[in-house]
């Protein structure tokens, strides 16, 4: 109960700290994989990094959105809402594509952010992002679908894989699925502050698991 009271009294501060924390995690993931990506030029890693790049941008936009909603005209708020949905969906679609790219393309290097395949992801995310203006729950709905597919693929990878980390990957995806499900429920039934705290804890664990996976790979270097 003390945590809930503290959270209620310091909501704004906690929101800023949380946003900065998640953005930092995304930045670290992208930066920590920079060296090995430049060496390997591996497509799956390219899309994986794109995912967390867009997630980071999404959280920055969300942070700005929450600040300006009160004091700025509605149009700016609407544009930022679309951008937030766009970046979040783009991040998730890139994460999904990082697991499935081998079925759609040969291993050829090209620009990370601008390519025909990326354009498809951007257009789809933009289209869905604009629809979210009409029905807010659309973002949560599509995130649930994307993460459900991610879960199926990562379960399949877990069976094939020799590394223990794939179990954590599955766990991370599952937590993210719960996060987006709770967000969807929150649209319908306003969850209380404790519900919010649980939701955001689940969300942060997802990023932490992915960062741990990157750092774990670094650990075995001589």
């Amino acid at each position, binding site marked *: 109960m003390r945590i809930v009271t503290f959270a209620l009294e310091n909501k704004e501060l906690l929101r800023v700290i949380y946003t900065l924390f998640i953005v930092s995690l995304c930045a670290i993931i992208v930066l920590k994989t920079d060296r090995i990506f430049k*060496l390997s030029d591996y497509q799956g890693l390219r899309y994986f990094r794109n995912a967390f790049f867009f997630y980071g941008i999404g959280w920055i936009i969300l942070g700005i959105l929450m600040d300006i909603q009160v004091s700025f005209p509605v149009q700016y708020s609407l544009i930022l809402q679309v951008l937030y949905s766009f970046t979040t969906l783009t991040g998730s679609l890139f994460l999904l594509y990082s697991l499935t790219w081998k079925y759609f393309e040969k291993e050829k290097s090209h620009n990370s952010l601008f390519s025909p395949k990326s354009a498809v992801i951007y257009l789809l995310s933009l289209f869905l992002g604009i629809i979210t203006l009409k029905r807010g729950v659309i973002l949560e709905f599509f995130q649930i679908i994307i993460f459900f597919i991610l879960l199926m693929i990562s379960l399949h990878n877990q069976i094939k894989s020799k590394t223990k980390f*794939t179990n954590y990957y599955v766990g991370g995806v599952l937590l993210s699925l719960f996060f987006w499900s709770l967000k969807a429920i929150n649209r319908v039934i306003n969850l209380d502050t404790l519900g919010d705290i649980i939701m955001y804890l689940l969300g942060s664990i997802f990023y932490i698991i992915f960062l741990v996976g990157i750092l774990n*790979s670094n650990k075995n270097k001589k």
Partner: protein
Amino acid sequence: MNKKRDRLTIIKEILTILSFKKTIKPTRLLHSSNLSPQMFKSYISELTDKKMLEINDKKEFLITLKGRSFLEEYKEIEKIIQNFGL
């Protein structure tokens, strides 16, 4: 029947062969790499563009510092790919 090698594995194998020799003639490397001439040419072109491999005055191949870095980092690259199913 041998499992089809992926791009990173082939690059690693070519660079490993190069790392054991100061220099190597193209035909020798072609035979050691187990690639078709066309594929071999494609990989050599990529490795040269990425400065992991260079060609000396005698038209022999030699590994660069960047190529050696790739070999050192290969385990890490492989681990990330396996961890995240990329």
